[in-house]
């Protein structure tokens, strides 16, 4: 997976495939913020989703630190969601931020970072971790499906988790950019 800075550069160079990649990479993240963080549903969530990527398209050139693409998109999404809530009739700004939204954002950021780190692992590790942790498959099922000898699955999962941890910790040190846009 290319880094965000490279992705931003390609988008700003006008590469159509890069825009597709950006949307693909961040669509679930944006939708999750709208849905889980701000509890937008149905057409409201869809409209917010469209509006976020329109703003990304219009304003990507204002992003100061291309490595801070994710926090920048998160901030855009939050503003769009607040606009939707305001348009729905609640006009007191202090009422707009749903309870627990900060914790939801932290959880989503962590989940997204883990997912990114997972994408950098060897294919066999991605597969075995996805099957165990996301699909709740048993050791036996995983072994049979992937042709891995019985009795080695638990060990293999722990080895892959070790690799994931290395990737994840590598991503998080030293701290990245601020995510701020130009004033």
């Amino acid at each position: 997976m290319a880094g965000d800075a490279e992705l931003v550069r390609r988008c700003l160079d006008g590469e159509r495939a890069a825009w597709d990649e950006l949307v693909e990479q961040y669509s679930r993240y944006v939708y999750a913020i709208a849905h889980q963080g701000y509890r937008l549903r149905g057409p409201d969530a869809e409209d917010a989703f469209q509006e976020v990527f329109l703003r990304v398209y219009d304003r990507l050139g204002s992003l100061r630190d291309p490595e801070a693409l994710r926090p920048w998109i998160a901030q855009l999404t939050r503003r769009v969601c607040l606009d939707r809530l305001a348009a729905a009739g609640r006009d007191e700004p202090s009422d707009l931020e749903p309870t627990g939204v900060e914790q939801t954002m932290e959880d989503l950021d962590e989940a997204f970072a883990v997912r990114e780190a997972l994408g950098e692992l060897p294919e066999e590790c991605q597969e075995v971790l996805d099957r165990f942790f996301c699909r709740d498959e048993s050791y036996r099922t995983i072994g049979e499906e992937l042709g891995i000898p019985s009795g080695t699955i638990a060990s293999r999962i722990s080895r892959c988790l070790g690799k994931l941890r290395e990737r994840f910790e590598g991503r998080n040190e030293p701290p990245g950019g601020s995510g701020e846009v130009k004033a």
Partner: protein
Amino acid sequence: MSSSPIQGAGFAAAQAAADAARLVATVARETDGWPRAAGVAAQATALADRLDELAREDAEAFAAALAALEASSGDLTIRMDRAAEVPLEITRTAADVCETAALVAERCDGVLRADAAGAAALASGAAVATAHLVRANLVVSPDDPRLVQALRAVDDARFWTKRALDAGA
């Protein structure tokens, strides 16, 4: 049809296996000098979480099946099927706890080995109990694939429990 959850043998077995999995996680975390200990602890914790959820599902499925049986309702077969599927999943997951426990028992600090082995034995008992629930289900025949799978999981559970008990013996 709605009914209050009933905490029967499937619920109790899932809870016991969940406790066993948490014990395995604790032993792994307490083991020094094993690079994969954290990964194994994470697996055991995931198994415990899964078993907690299965305990809740079993209580609901069991209650729904009993209610359907008493009322001779039209969805009786569906309810009974569900009441067999959840214990089967508990059996499989408990067998995985046994395997994880064996892995830990063979590598953990000696003073903690008995705890890992004990966890395997507990989870193995849970696997036996829930496989029996699959067998006892009214819609499960002796050659039903679910029963075959449950008994195979019990074999796995026993195999890994023996490994855990033999570790360091």
